[in-house]
């Protein structure tokens, strides 16, 4: 679709739904980027060179933002540089860069938000942006920005060599190596596309309550898609490694493991039988099955939906929603994970939030607006945005279930006839109705407690609360998935993580096919 239709596409998705998906690994995203912004630093105390904005200007912008009676103002500055190199048909023969530089100004008046952004960091542009955001209120100035106290966030994803110092020539061999290892793994591989994408995002958040904090957020995604042909059949598979890491994390061993998993999962599909039709007990394998938590409960816990009264979990705090033994966490603190955050996009320190403790719902995921709405002392550090072009809303970070006590084999052996679901590619949830779906790329049938035939390409659908109620066995093998998940909501995509130990989940409806 043409560019003007992007909005059409984003909004065309049903209201109140949220989707999560893996990137189209082979299509390097348009956008990528470059060096920065390095304009001359203003004389006298510039502290964040890439922006060329000093503390005095930040205060003037916040003051202007409050000029019409808003009770809180915030400026979010971002400089983000993305690069990708991509391989197709055996050669690393395309690259992209993308540079995003700009500032978003937000003003709150009660629950209402005024938001504007600019891509021009001159004083005139920033003040004009502040004036636009200020118009959410319509009265005399009621508050003044406080003096800044600089916060020093923890460091959960420092990397030795920043991506800005890594040239293309060092990335090309890694992608070529992935291609070579994958092709050598099985002669039936006929096509392979791969890319290495990196991102360096610098953010600065300053608000009228005196908070001022900066963070550097690296990201890497090494991914590939392969196509195999055998006896007239074509099968494809995609795999990726996504982390807040630097180039040196991509070791020879990691590339080899990725190549082997990519190919082995692909050629295994030649033996696939049609997936079953209708309700069947499902065992979720450790890893990407964590999408169950993301869709079945995670979105319903995002407090904006609850503040609006549209979540199926709106009145369930303190109530049992899963059997004892089920503890679900949304965590920003895991080192180098794709969804981890030193600070969120409102400047709050990233934290570990227990959503469900031993089966009982404990808290929603809050941003500033919802925390204030629910009269909490602070948010859960869950305010996130795609970029400076968007206001923050409550979002997940890395969502997973704590490990249980069973062995994986014990869980599988407990099912007479069912589905062992291993790899997922995407999912979606209707927040209010609670219906969620997740798409199975690779699974196995369970017959008499043993894994048998491979199945693929089936949508699984269920009602979130009901599925959680039926989780009755949790294994001790928690895996945080390393594929690069992106969660879309309100037209904004943010990187997230998810994970799960092997879990027996009761019956779920499977969208299978006849042979």
């Amino acid at each position: 679709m043409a560019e003007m239709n992007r909005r059409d596409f984003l909004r065309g998705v049903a209201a109140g739904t949220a989707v999560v998906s893996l990137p189209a690994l082979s299509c390097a995203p348009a956008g990528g980027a470059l060096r920065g912004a390095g304009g001359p630093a203003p004389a006298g105390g510039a502290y964040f060179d890439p922006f060329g904005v000093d503390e005095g200007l930040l205060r003037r912008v916040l003051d202007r933002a409050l000029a019409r009676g808003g009770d809180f103002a915030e400026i979010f500055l971002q400089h983000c540089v993305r690069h990708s190199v991509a391989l197709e048909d055996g050669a690393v023969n395309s690259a992209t860069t993308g540079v995003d530089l700009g500032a978003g100004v937000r003003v709150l008046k009660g629950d209402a938000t005024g938001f504007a952004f600019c891509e021009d960091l001159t004083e005139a542009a920033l003040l004009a942006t502040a004036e636009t955001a200020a118009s959410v209120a319509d009265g005399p100035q009621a508050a003044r920005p406080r003096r800044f106290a600089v916060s020093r966030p923890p460091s959960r994803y420092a990397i030795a060599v920043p991506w800005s110092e890594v040239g293309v020539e060092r990335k090309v061999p890694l992608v070529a190596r992935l291609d070579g290892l994958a092709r050598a793994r099985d002669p039936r591989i006929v096509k392979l596309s791969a890319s290495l994408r990196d991102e360096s995002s610098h953010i600065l958040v300053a608000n009228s309550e005196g908070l001022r904090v900066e963070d550097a957020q690296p990201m890497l995604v090494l991914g590939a898609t392969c196509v195999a042909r055998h006896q007239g059949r074509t099968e494809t598979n995609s795999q990726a490694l996504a982390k807040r890491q630097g180039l040196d994390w991509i070791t020879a061993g990691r590339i080899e493991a990725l190549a082997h998993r990519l190919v082995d999962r692909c050629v295994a599909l030649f033996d696939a039988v049609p997936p079953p039709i209708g309700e069947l007990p499902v065992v979720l394998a450790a890893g990407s099955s964590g999408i169950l938590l993301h869709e079945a409960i995670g979105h319903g816990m995002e407090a904006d939906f609850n503040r609006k009264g549209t979540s199926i979990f709106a009145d369930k705090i303190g109530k049992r929603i899963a059997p004892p033994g089920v503890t679900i966490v949304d965590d920003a603190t895991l080192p180098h994970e794709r969804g981890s955050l030193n600070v969120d996009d409102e400047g709050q320190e990233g934290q570990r939030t227990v959503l469900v403790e031993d089966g009982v719902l404990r808290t929603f995921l809050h941003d500033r607006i919802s925390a204030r709405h629910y009269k909490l002392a602070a948010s859960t550090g869950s305010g996130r945005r795609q970029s400076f072009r968007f206001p923050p809303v409550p979002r997940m970070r890395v969502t997973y279930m704590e490990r249980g006590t069973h062995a994986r084999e014990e869980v599988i052996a407990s099912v007479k006839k069912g589905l062992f679901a291993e790899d997922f590619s995407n999912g979606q949830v209707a927040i209010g109705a609670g219906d969620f779906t997740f798409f199975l790329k690779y699974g196995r049938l369970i017959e008499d407690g043993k894994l048998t035939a491979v199945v693929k390409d089936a949508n699984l659908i269920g009602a979130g609360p009901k599925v959680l109620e039926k989780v009755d066995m949790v294994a001790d093998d928690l895996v945080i998935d390393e594929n690069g998940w992106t969660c879309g909501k309100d037209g904004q995509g943010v990187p997230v993580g998810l994970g799960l130990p092997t879990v027996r989940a009761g019956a779920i409806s499977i969208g299978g096919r006849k042979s």
Partner: protein
Amino acid sequence: MSHELLEQAWGAVRGAQRRGAQGARAAAHRVRESTLEWRDGALDRLQESTRMGLEVALFVDGRYSTHATSDLRPEALEGFLDECVAMTRVLAEDAHRALPDPARYQGRFQGDLGLMDEAGVAGSTPAERRRLVQALEAAVRAGPGADQLASVTTACSDTAGERALVCSNGMEGSWRGSSFYLWAECAVKDAGGRKPEGWWYSARRQRGALQAPEEIGREALRRALAQVGAKPEPSGEHPCVVEAAVAGRLFADLLSPLSGWAIQQQRSFLADKLDQAVAAACLTLADDPLLPAGLASQAYDGEGMSAVRRPIFEQGVLRTHFLDTYSARKLGREPTTGGASNLVFQGGERDLAGLLQAMGTGLLVTGFSGGNSNAATGDFSVGVKGMWVEGGRPVRPVAEMNLSGNHLALWKRLAELGNDPNPSSSLRIPSLRFDPVQFSGT
């Protein structure tokens, strides 16, 4: 203003050439957007912005790369181009990369596509936006069954933008466009804390062509109430009707395998289907980039090639693959265009009620959830909700079911198209009636 964007784009092309690029294409844009969101009687979010940006494709010593930036300060742009050209030189050569044949820039449509509504833009004042979001909410709350409402959110947005595209081998184009958008969504109370939602929207290039707020609000409420008490039906093969507003979700699964990239990468179940019957004879549609006031109308495509109307399916026979210059050269074929613009379907005789009458008993699909389609094989599986229909009338709500199969079989089972194309999408699909297809539920 377009002059300024053209200068910016030419500046990037010339800058790339000075650094050694043999060819370059550059696009510049500036888009102003205002959005007002209103929730339960109060302002929820007000957003205004102007976004700018520059995109460049480089052809350097037989190598290729693409780049985008929103940092348009002159000194930053110089550094940007330095780095872009330098990194391109490190890549492998690719003989298939090239700018389009300049002959493809010729014959461009010169008339007015009706993409810019100046009066509509001028009339979109803060006060008018507020009137519209309030009218939308009032319409939701005035509908039958409004006492079951849990929450109502409405939104209004308008954009006005300009874009310029230039290529070093002799292409220059610019255009301006507006878009207007009204939205209503609501959640209603159901048993067990369930709160089914309903939404409706209208999107147009011309403000005066928008659907009335009263109709949008009423429809959002109707759709939410229709899902109260929804449950899955037993699995089985049933005839179905897919409503126009959501049918694009099903058809969109065909777009990825129609792309030259998917075909060349052997990830397309439609690669070898050109000039073959892929769908039932009732399916005829064209890609029409010159549709007056079309949401995806444009006189040239993303590579600058002059836009023309092309048949995609004629009586079920596939007529066109979407081939950009690169994939066409790799496949040894002539380029068409890199992707779909407005997809215009030849509609049928009957409206939605007529299709339900013709179906008799089966499923009316009013929404999709999640799901995916394997572009290499055509196997698909997608969540659905809607209404169970008996005697041509909806009798009970349905949710938590999947529709699954293979696209090559599905579109052969297309029995009839409605006369109700969706005007709020560039995928202007009408309602669809299918002979029995596989649904799974309980």
